[in-house]
């Protein structure tokens, strides 16, 4: 079973604050993703990556940066957090195959006050 670990699990910050969400997968998957989940919107893709050093823009990238430092590690950065970024964030990975099955982390609940 693929293992995707997110940290922290919960985070509270203030408007304008700087937040980094971390994700590590230990299954040698090439693809990693950051999603946010909000009521009424389902999961929306923020950024994704094909491999170390690669970054692709998702569907809702504004206000977010991401960095893939290694094959295992994918970070999501909020440099000036806003209340609209209060959400449940999921990281996911998938193997380099046509099936493209997603394996999710447990999620990070972020509150921006």
């Amino acid at each position: 079973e693929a293992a995707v670990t997110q940290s922290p699990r919960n985070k509270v910050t203030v408007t304008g604050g700087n937040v980094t969400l971390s994700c590590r997968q230990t299954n040698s998957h090439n693809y990693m993703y950051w999603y946010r989940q909000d009521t009424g919107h389902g999961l929306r893709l923020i950024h994704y990556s094909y491999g170390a050093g690669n970054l692709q823009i998702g569907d809702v990238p504004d206000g977010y940066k991401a960095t893939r430092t290694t094959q295992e590690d994918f970070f999501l950065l909020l440099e000036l957090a806003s209340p609209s970024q209060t959400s449940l964030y999921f990281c996911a990975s998938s193997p380099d195959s046509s099936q493209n099955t997603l394996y999710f982390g447990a999620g990070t609940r972020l509150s921006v006050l």
Partner: protein
Amino acid sequence: GQQVQQSPASLVLQEGENAELQCNFSSTATQLQWFYQSPGGSLVSLLSNPSGTKHTGRLTSTTVTKERRSSLHISSSQTTDSGTYLCAIDPAGGYKVVFGSGTRLLVSP
């Protein structure tokens, strides 16, 4: 853009009843997955079914690709089936998986 619509938005059942969840998508999909999200928020993949019928345990998924629809049938529902069921597609030619808003299922004893 790609859209995934799920129905019903919510469903309440008595334990033992069957559930039928629908997923319609507006673009060609090379992959279709059903996910379960627990009330606590964790997400797990239930099955991948880009076409045809697939069974796993009490779950049966039927996808008709040319009609751009998929269904998930849960037989003999249990209280532990309560949660949100998400449909997701992988549009042809891309790796950006697109999710529906989900069906929230509540199974009461």
